């Protein structure tokens, strides 16, 4: 027997990066908010520097819901399923994956909002790859700028501005769009090694700069500065210097008295009323079913969860899934091509044992449309990122650059000399959405509740492969200029489960091709909002979280400002 709870103004499904920021403006506006989170609360005692648990075992004590519903991937509709992974990439918990993410907090570049029109304007019609469903966003960077600014301060982002009100500052990213003001904190410090890389980039005529991070470079809002201890990569911060929503926006919303958080609440369905409006949600907690009525539902899970919950929530008004009468839920799905890195071997020790993946040096010269594509056979590009971050198991798992076998005495001798002489790079590349890359419900694979998991049907296309090869060329050139004696290119892989998954509930003005409108609410269900990277129609060449957070803040502010018309 389900327990029917008191009605909330807003129920937020998921208190991660997106839902966790949305609750602050909602609570500040005086709305009664219920936040449902599948995980528990985690704190500094849980954030041990434990490489095995954090990086190899996927936080088994915490990531339970996502591990029960890991998507199944197949590269195309005619291909068999790939073996299903055993560890999900995301985190359940108050704060979600912002607890253990890399915390790189980028704004998108102006081009990312206008891929179709800018490509056509600069290179003529026909340069957008065939089969791509990419559209311009319904607005440009200038619309999102105030919300980026708001979130950079609410969460706490360190960085070096490259363009304040049109004034270019070469210490930052000269390709970024105009911002109203600088970051609230200076950038994280570099290391001697990242300085070596920055100098090499300058010799090549490129424009290196420190990347932005939701990590404190100095004391911020009462929280410690970063201590650079080396376990930030998939690890939580023992001094709360990583600005997850669990230590920034969520506590403020709770202190207002307007946010009630329910942990270990697994939302199973979104309910609709007789008029086809969202009525609330059902969730399981401790084996009991609860019904949480609400005037407005904000769906704020990860990309796979958002599409899945809509597709599972069928009704007479929405027989193929909620807000899916146009068949767009699950469409326009893509992930960053995060594979295809370049590794380099140096002739001396680099001392990368400490630091964090956000402590690094970026080059944006070959990202987006920051360079001339007239004579190239692709659009878009990639951001190059080199950083100080290495732990012992990963170090010992290093490639041998063709100089030693992978085991035995010769291997042992090789890693003794070289475990601290190699470095990886992180190359985020433009990925476009395509007609035949999509999410749906798997026909047979189910979670323990009997609900189907998400099936990913997706693979990289020619444009993405060409971008990846071009970016690897640039990264090799950069490493060699910095003194590397050998490089290795990693394979591009396929489009399986990713930490940078986009689409499935794309934002746009046309309901025929987009699930949500320009404010973040479903075209078909006006009191149901969707938060997260699932609403983004392009990826840019950089981490999605800050953009998802800016969009979430904007949707929440819009809801509060326009409450009567949305809540009905």
């Amino acid at each position, binding site marked *: 027997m389900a327990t029917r709870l008191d009605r909330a103004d807003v129920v937020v499904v998921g208190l991660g990066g997106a839902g966790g920021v949305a609750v602050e403006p909602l609570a500040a506006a005086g709305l009664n908010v219920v936040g449902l989170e599948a995980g528990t609360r985690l704190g500094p005692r849980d954030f041990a520097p*434990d490489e095995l648990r954090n990086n190899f075992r996927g936080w088994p004590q915490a990531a339970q819901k996502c591990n029960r519903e890991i998507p199944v991937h197949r590269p195309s509709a005619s291909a068999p399923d790939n073996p299903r992974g055993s560890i999900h990439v995301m985190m359940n918990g108050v704060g979600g994956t912002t607890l253990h993410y890399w915390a790189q907090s980028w704004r998108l570049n102006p081009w990312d909002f206008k891929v179709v029109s800018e490509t056509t304007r600069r290179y003529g019609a026909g340069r957008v790859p065939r089969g791509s469903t990419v559209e311009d966003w319904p607005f440009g960077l200038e619309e999102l700028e105030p919300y980026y600014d708001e979130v950079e301060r609410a969460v706490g982002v360190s960085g070096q501005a490259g363009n304040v009100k049109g004034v270019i500052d070469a210490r930052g990213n000269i390709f970024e769009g105009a911002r109203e003001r600088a970051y609230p904190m200076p950038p994280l410090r570099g*290391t001697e090694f990242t300085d070596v890389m920055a100098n090499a980039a300058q010799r090549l005529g490129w424009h290196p700069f420190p990347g932005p991070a939701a990590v404190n470079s100095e004391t911020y809002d009462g929280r410690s500065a970063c201590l650079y201890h080396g376990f930030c990569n998939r690890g939580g911060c023992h001094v709360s210097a990583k600005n997850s929503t669990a230590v920034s926006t969520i506590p403020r919303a709770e202190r207002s008295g307007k946010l009630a958080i329910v942990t270990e609440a697994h939302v199973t369905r979104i309910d609709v009323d007789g008029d086809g409006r969202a009525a609330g949600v059902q969730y399981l907690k401790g084996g009991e079913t609860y019904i949480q009525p609400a005037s407005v539902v904000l769906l704020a899970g990860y990309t796979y969860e958002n599409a899945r919950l809509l597709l599972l929530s069928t009704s007479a008004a929405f027989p193929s899934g909620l807000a899916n009468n146009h068949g767009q839920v699950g469409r326009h799905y893509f992930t960053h091509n995060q594979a295809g890195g370049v590794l380099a071997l140096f002739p001396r020790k680099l001392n990368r044992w400490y630091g964090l993946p956000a402590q690094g040096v970026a080059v944006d010269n070959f990202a987006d449309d920051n360079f001339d594509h007239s004579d190239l056979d692709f659009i878009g590009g990639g951001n190059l990122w080199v950083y100080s971050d290495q732990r012992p198991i990963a170090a010992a798992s290093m490639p041998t650059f063709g100089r030693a076998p992978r085991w*035995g005495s010769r291997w042992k001798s090789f890693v003794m000399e070289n475990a601290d002489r190699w470095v990886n790079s992180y190359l985020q590349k433009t990925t476009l959405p395509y007609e035949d890359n999509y999410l749906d419900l798997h026909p047979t694979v189910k979670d323990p509740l009997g609900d189907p998991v998400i099936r990913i049907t997706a693979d990289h296309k020619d444009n993405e492969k060409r971008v990846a090869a071009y970016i690897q060329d640039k990264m090799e050139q950069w490493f060699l200029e910095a003194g590397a004696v050998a490089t290795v290119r990693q394979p591009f892989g396929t489009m399986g489960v990713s930490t940078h998954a986009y689409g499935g509930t794309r934002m746009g003005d046309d309901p025929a091709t987009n699930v949500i409108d320009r404010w973040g609410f479903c075209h078909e269900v006006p009191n149901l909002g969707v938060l997260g990277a699932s609403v983004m129609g392009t990826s840019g060449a950089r981490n999605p979280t800050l953009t998802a957070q800016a969009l979430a803040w904007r949707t929440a502010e819009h809801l509060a400002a326009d409450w009567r018309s949305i809540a009905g």
Partner: protein
Amino acid sequence: MKRRWSRREMLRRSAALGDVVAVPANVLAQAANAAPYVNLSAAEAATLEALVARLIPSDANGPGALEAGAARYIDGALANAVAAQRPAYAAGLAALDAYARSRAGGSFAALPPERQDELIGDLEENRATGFAPSSSAFFELVLGHTLEGTFGDPHYGGNQDFIGWELIGYPGLRLAVTAEQQRMDAKLEPLRSSAYDHTQFDEHTTAGERDGD
């Protein structure tokens, strides 16, 4: 998760029992390595020990995976974190022994190191027969876990006496790191502790107790 006997734990136990505390590290490692296996049979353990001893051998450059306790780390992990791989270990270790008998006329553990290395090369190159789904998959499985058991936090039973961290020159856990300590030529004193020697951390979440709802 069940704790394996780490060196520190053995020290604690020794102290609790009123034993002499100053037991030499090599004696402790031998004692830990003499305890019975929990999950693997004696035959499986013998084959696995011989295998990890060749993947990261003890040689002129110092002790290897066996001395670090990698086989015991795997044995412990098969009870929990990698329990799903228990059938793969059972099948793979049996297949390796059968392959050794067919190719070299003896159990894998009893072969001389050079012959063992030839057979491991067959696994890696996926030339060995009798494995499902493949001998290279079994090789990758064991190699990955051997690296974990040699270079992981000793809390989990491997990396005894910090053999792995010494091998690659890891300077150890530091909860705060200065700019100077990140210089390429920094001379860092090796610090040798498990994450859970730092009493500010719990392995398991205690969130349920802290949760207000």
